[in-house]
């Protein structure tokens, strides 16, 4: 992974902006995220800071790998009008990502926020460490690595993300959830705020980096005054909202959805951490539905990714990640209703598509239907490749690359 440290203070950043700038925040979702200075949550914090100081932020753009210049071009092409309106782009990327953005948007002021030191590792004990510094840094190759703290102190740079204490307190309102009043951010996403308040709301298709999809229906809640059950991931908070997250009807529906997922995908789906957790939580041991899906062929044609359609629950995260984060739109839905499936390319093998191997789909898949390929073989005993599948025990933030 590439090691970068924040090079600008918040005041220096503001000096590069003018009050009437229309700002786009642009963040990479790979190496710099592991260095703690990028990602959707960091963009949201910076947006709050800038808006609190009277600046206009018109868009937050998350890209799976900002050092892939073709992906940056696609992000621009899909939102040409918005980028035409922008006058400044703040990049939460390494210097490579910054160069790509500057190249793709030559007429817009691009402000880089990080200094890149070279390549390194993600260490279990120390976090990101620099092992192979670039020549201008003046440090030697060191397998033990230089920590980010070492680098910040040696080069007089900025520790961590922008002054977190300067993030203005967002306007809070009170809503009632399951009979108790809770304080939440005004106009925020209901599911985000419920989760932030440590409530256990099942959700399989929602991730704050990808936005609402509303496919799995597991996060359904009741809201007083609204007809039927509503997906909390697609609901914006309003003053005085009265929300019910758990009752007999909701629990029955969630159990039904889980049983249908297991019936459609087979017992193997229980290996998925999220599914297993909710099956245990709702004490589902038997299934009223019979297995209805035919075994489908696993696509291991690609050098990097493996796709197992049998494990797909049609949550749409991979489709969303491929379209929004990568911009390649390699993964899509095909057919309709109960015949809906996810496909790659024009229903082709992964290897025959123009996949950029940014791994966004694999990182966001909740059921390991798409996983990075990792294989091993013993030359003497059993000289055939064995697949090592990565259990989803880790979040994207702990995967380095």
């Amino acid at each position: 992974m590439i090691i970068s440290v924040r090079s600008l203070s918040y005041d220096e950043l503001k000096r590069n902006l003018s009050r009437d700038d229309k700002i786009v925040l642009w963040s990479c979702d790979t190496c710099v995220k592991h260095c703690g200075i990028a990602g959707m949550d960091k963009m949201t914090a910076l947006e709050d800071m800038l808006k609190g100081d009277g600046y206009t932020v018109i868009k937050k753009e998350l890209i799976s790998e900002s050092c892939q210049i073709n992906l940056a071009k696609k992000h621009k092409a899909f939102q040409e009008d918005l980028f035409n309106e922008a006058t400044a782009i703040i990049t939460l990327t390494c210097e490579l990502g910054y160069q790509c953005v500057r190249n793709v948007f030559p007429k817009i002021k691009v402000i880089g926020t990080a200094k890149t030191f070279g390549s390194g590792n993600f260490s279990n004990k120390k976090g990101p460490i620099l092992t192979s510094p670039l020549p201008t840094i003046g440090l030697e190759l060191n397998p033990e690595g230089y920590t980010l703290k070492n680098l910040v102190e040696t080069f007089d740079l900025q520790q961590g993300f922008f002054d977190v204490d300067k993030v203005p307190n967002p306007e809070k309102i009170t809503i009632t959830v399951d009979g108790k009043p809770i304080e939440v951010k005004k106009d925020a996403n209901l599911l985000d705020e419920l989760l932030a308040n440590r409530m256990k709301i099942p959700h399989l298709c929602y991730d704050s980096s990808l936005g609402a999809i509303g496919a799995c229906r597991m996060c359904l809640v009741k809201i007083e005054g609204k007809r039927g059950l509503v997906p909390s991931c697609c609901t914006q908070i309003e003053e005085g909202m009265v929300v019910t997250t758990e009752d007999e009807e909701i629990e029955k529906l969630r159990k039904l959805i889980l049983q249908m997922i297991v019936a459609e995908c087979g017992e193997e789906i229980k290996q998925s951490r999220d599914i297993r957790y909710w099956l245990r939580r709702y004490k589902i041991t038997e299934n009223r539905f019979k297995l209805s899906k035919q075994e489908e062929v696993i696509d291991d044609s690609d050098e990097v990714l493996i796709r197992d359609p049998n494990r797909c629950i049609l949550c749409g995260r991979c489709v969303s990640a491929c379209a929004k984060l990568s911009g390649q739109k390699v993964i899509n839905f095909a057919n309709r209703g109960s015949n809906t499936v996810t496909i790659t390319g024009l229903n082709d093998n992964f290897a025959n598509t123009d996949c950029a191997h940014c791994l966004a789909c694999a990182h966001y898949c909740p059921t390991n239907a798409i996983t990075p390929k990792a294989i091993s073989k013993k030359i003497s005993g059993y000289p055939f490749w064995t697949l090592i599948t990565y259990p989803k025990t880790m979040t994207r933030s702990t995967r380095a690359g």
Partner: protein
Amino acid sequence: MIFSKIESYEDIVKKLDKNEDKIAIISCNTCARTCGNGGINKLNELGFRLIREGYNVTDEAVVLYACSEPILRESKLNIDDANTIIVLSCSAGWSCFTRNYPDKKVLKVTEDIGLVITDTDREIFKVVMPYKGHESELDNEYRTNTGEPLASKKIKLRCVA
């Protein structure tokens, strides 16, 4: 992305002992694969040749990232039979294995050339931040997956560290 070049086969075997070394070859499937020095193809190429020439190769594996300890832990590599590891990755991957397998000889068989930007649609990558001794590589472009040098420049940008 990090661009590294693999040493010649002759230079690699100079570091090996045919009688003593039990070799595990680990190949990175991200940057090194993109730059033509990792992934399954390079692993097979080196593995077959070493086995054919009588070296004791015990294990082969392709891992997603060689530079990540969490990924290394997840992949649960069973390379206890080996006493020597050849890592087909950049020097960051080599550092990671050096730290995590202190009782084994971890061979460094690649050299870092620089940090690169890629254009996966056109299958090219460009050196924009070169490493020490490779300053002349600045701006050079290569074909992804093979590392074959390209004569003409297709990505128009320049970056100096």
